[in-house]
Structures are given as structure tokens and as C-alpha cells.
């Protein structure tokens, strides 16, 4: 690996952005509205979650995340995007990919590969690693790969305490040989995967989750994937190697428990040492996830955005990244961020957009749920009632947004508003 003090070079993330909707609800409102035990909010470590609108779907979430990245490229740079990989557990068709719509609405070159990848919340990291390998291979000089993680929430009262933690939105990650956001440590990764049914989406309108199975799988995978990382990277040490950590964040409380587990296993740390380390190395990555919820495939990149936007970055900092997806597959990898990463990411104004979201009441939220649950259900024809979301959309007028207008003969049709 390179020294953390070296300048950014190599291959990695050139640009990063997240789109987390334009509506939100305080987590406490869902607890109270569903008569859940508010005593559990503390361990959940969640304050708000993003809520989708009936005119939003995995395509709009992906495009609204990626367009600010694309708009900053000149025509030559845009044409250099040779692969578009969409990672999602919210497919809109068994055959036609979300990527086909996203490619069209981003106006990417027709000389571009399109693909959709699925492995629950992990797939975006598999896509990023394949993109890094493609770019680094030199097979096509100057090539860029755009990875977009995008999902929608299907959570309602059927999933109990998972409902207040689910988010919605997308994360766009542009991979190239100009890693202005994060250079990925080449060859520094560890994976761990096995078959389990911890959570899944067996149909287009519902999720299933076995909470214990899922949390335990996440924690086992973190230990095992880091062990695999440590076998590949000489001298790797969970405490000393990484200035910061960014983990897949289904809810903040799980990340805190995962960090505590690793600090005990790897360093026999005391409770006080664990807390100090958590506040210093992990907490910056949780600021956005704790007000957005589980972004699913994009979750770990939301955590990375949060870290870069809020952590003090002096010189180079090495970040340990853990990505987990139910089913299950996981990976621990690392990269180098720099103080300049923060100024590049700041152009996306992520914190300002999160602060601008329209705060819904529990009643407004439940009124949206029925329509939101139709988002992925195959329907031959359906017109979206944009008027029902007018007041919320009006708050986002300063942003150019893609919205779903209609499904006609199974074809999804969109408008910019």
C-alpha cells in the first residue's frame, strides 16, 4: 500500500454523490405511530429517515444521484464512461435493466456497456472493485466506469423495527485513474460469503427479514472479511492501519456494535478505549446514515460521503471500508482520502440537500405508503399522480429532478421537473 501522506494517485473514486430523496420523517414519529417501544430508539441510533414519493423509483433515484456528477464532466470526459453498472435490489424488470433507463436519462455515450448487478446491499462494492480492476488493467486508456447504487424502501409495519431504519435513494460513484475522492488501495481487500436467508425481497412489494440471522451474519462477515484482508495486506492492523472507518449502515447501532466487537477481538480494548475510538474513527461516517436510513446498495457510500464531509482531514487519511449484503456476501477494503477530497465532495452540497427535505407527519407518511409499495409491481399502464406530491416537489424546485410520469405498455416514462 502507499503511504497515507502521499498524494492521491492510482485508481479509485473520481466523483461521488448521493441522492436521498426530498422528504423525510423523524424516526420517533414512526415509533409513536406504530406503537413501537421508544426505549429502543437509543440502540437504533437513528434520528430521521428519507421517504420516497410515488413519482420516484430506482431509475429516478439513480439519475438524481448521478446527474450532478455527469454535469461536471466535459464532453470528452463524459464520453470516456465505457461501462455503466447499476447495483440494486429493486429491479423494475426481470430482463430490462435499470441501467438502460439511467443511460438514456444521463445522456451517456451509446458506446457504453450497460449492466445491472444484484447482491443485496453489497453489489455496489463488487461493481466498484470490478471497475477499479478494469481501469487499472489499462485495457482501455483513459476509461471511466460509472457505478450507481439505487434502491427504494418497501418497508411498512410488516417489518416491525426495520421500518424506522429503512431509507431510499441512490449513490453515484465514478471510477477512473483520477481518484479525486478516494484512491483504492490496489490488492488490499478481503471477502467473505456464504448462503443464508437473513433478509430478502421475494416479491416486488414486500421484504422479509430475520433480524438475528442478519445481524449475526453481518458481524461474522466483518470479522472474516477483515481476516482475509489482513492475510493479503502485510502488517494490517484494525486499530493502527485506518484513520477512519466507513461501514454498511443498516442502522447506526449495528455499526457501533460491530466496531465494539472488532476492538475487543483485535485489540482487547476496554470500554473507554472502544468509545474514544468510535467517536474519533467511526462517528463521522454515521452523521448522514442516521438521518437518511439504510440506503441499501448505496449505504456504505453514504457512510463514506458522511465521513469525507464531516471528519477533520489533514493530509492523507486511510479509510477502512466494510460492505455487506444479505444472502450473503461481504468485503473489507481500504483507500486513501485527502483533504482535497472534502472540497471536491462539498460541491455536491449533500448536507444542504438533506437539510432541505420536507419533514412529513406520520399521517402524511402512511398516505404515501400504498402508492410507494406499487413502485416495483409490474403494471402495463399507470399514470403517476404528480399533484399528490406537488407541495413536496415545490420545495425541491431549486434542483433539477427526474420524476416518473407514467408507465405505458410496461415502458417507464420520465420527466425533468
Amino acid at each position: 500500500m502507499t503511504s497515507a501522506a502521499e498524494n492521491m494517485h492510482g485508481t479509485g473514486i473520481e466523483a461521488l454523490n448521493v441522492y436521498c430523496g426530498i422528504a423525510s420523517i423523524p424516526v420517533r414519529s414512526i415509533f409513536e405511530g406504530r406503537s413501537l417501544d421508544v426505549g429502543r430508539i437509543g440502540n437504533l441510533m437513528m434520528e430521521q429517515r428519507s421517504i420516497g414519493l410515488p413519482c420516484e423509483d430506482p431509475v429516478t433515484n439513480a439519475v438524481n444521484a448521478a446527474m450532478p456528477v455527469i454535469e461536471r464532466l466535459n464532453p470528452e470526459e463524459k464520453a470516456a464512461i465505457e461501462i455503466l453498472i447499476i447495483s440494486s435490489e429493486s429491479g423494475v424488470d426481470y430482463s430490462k435493466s435499470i441501467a438502460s433507463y439511467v443511460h438514456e436519462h444521463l445522456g451517456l455515450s451509446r458506446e457504453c456497456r450497460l449492466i445491472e448487478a444484484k447482491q443485496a446491499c453489497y453489489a455496489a462494492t463488487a461493481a466498484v472493485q470490478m471497475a477499479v480492476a478494469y481501469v487499472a488493467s489499462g485495457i482501455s486508456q483513459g476509461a471511466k466506469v460509472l457505478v450507481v447504487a439505487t434502491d427504494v424502501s418497501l418497508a411498512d409495519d410488516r417489518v416491525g423495527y426495520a421500518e424506522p431504519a429503512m431509507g431510499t435513494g441512490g449513490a453515484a460513484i465514478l471510477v477512473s485513474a483520477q481518484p479525486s475522492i478516494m484512491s483504492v488501495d490496489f490488492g488490499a481487500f478481503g471477502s467473505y460469503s456464504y448462503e443464508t436467508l437473513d433478509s430478502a425481497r421475494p416479491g416486488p412489494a414486500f421484504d422479509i427479514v430475520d433480524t438475528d440471522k442478519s445481524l449475526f451474519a453481518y458481524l461474522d462477515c466483518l470479522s472474516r472479511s477483515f481476516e482475509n484482508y489482513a492475510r493479503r495486506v502485510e502488517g494490517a492492523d484494525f486499530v493502527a492501519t485506518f484513520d477512519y472507518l466507513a461501514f454498511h449502515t443498516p442502522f447506526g447501532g449495528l455499526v457501533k456494535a460491530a466496531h465494539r466487537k472488532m476492538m475487543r477481538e483485535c485489540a482487547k480494548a476496554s470500554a473507554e478505549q472502544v468509545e474514544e475510538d468510535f467517536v474519533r474513527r467511526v462517528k463521522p461516517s454515521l452523521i448522514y446514515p442516521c438521518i437518511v436510513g439504510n440506503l441499501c446498495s448505496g449505504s456504505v457510500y453514504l457512510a463514506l460521503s458522511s465521513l469525507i464531509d464531516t471528519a477533520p482531514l489533514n493530509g492523507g487519511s486511510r479509510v477502512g471500508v466494510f460492505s455487506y449484503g444479505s444472502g450473503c456476501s461481504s468485503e473489507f477494503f481500504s483507500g486513501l482520502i485527502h483533504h482535497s477530497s472534502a472540497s471536491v465532495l462539498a460541491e455536491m452540497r449533500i448536507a444542504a440537500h438533506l437539510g432541505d427535505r420536507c419533514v412529513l407527519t406520520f399521517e402524511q407518511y402512511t398516505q404515501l405508503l400504498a402508492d410507494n409499495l406499487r413502485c416495483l409491481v409490474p403494471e402495463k399502464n399507470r399514470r403517476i399522480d404528480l399533484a399528490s406530491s406537488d407541495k413536496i416537489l415545490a420545495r425541491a424546485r431549486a434542483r433539477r429532478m427526474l420524476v416518473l410520469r407514467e408507465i405505458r405498455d410496461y415502458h417507464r416514462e420520465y420527466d425533468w421537473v
Partner: protein
Amino acid sequence: MDREDIAGIVYKTIAKILPVPPGEISGEKHIRDLGADSVDRVEIILSLIDQLKIHEPLASFAEIKNINGLVELLYERKRL
């Protein structure tokens, strides 16, 4: 270490992490029934693995039916 020793450690650990009177803890209950949320459950299992110095994937604990089942699993692994 026999089953009773393991059960003693399990009951003591649960009582330390959950705000329940020790009298309410019984083998037929799941720790979920005692008000343990998912983070509490993780903490209880990790604490037990740590105290008993066993090496067992957490996934093995996902299927346990109640505290008796937890004691039995820990006892079996400790014997190995």
C-alpha cells in the same frame, strides 16, 4: 464446566445487560421476551463468547429457541 456453571454465567450476563429482575429470567424464555432488542442480543452473545473463550460464528446463535437452547449450545461448544 457443567451445564449449571454455564447457565449461571448466562443468567448473570443477561441480568447485567438487561434491566430485568433476575427472577424474571427463565430457561423457557427467549432473551427477546425479556425486552432485549437486536443490539442487546448481540451484546449478550458476544459477552458470553468472550467470557467462555469459545470460537463460534454468531450465525450459530440465530436459531436458538430460548435461554435453555442458548445454554445447551454454549455447553456443547465448550466441551469441544
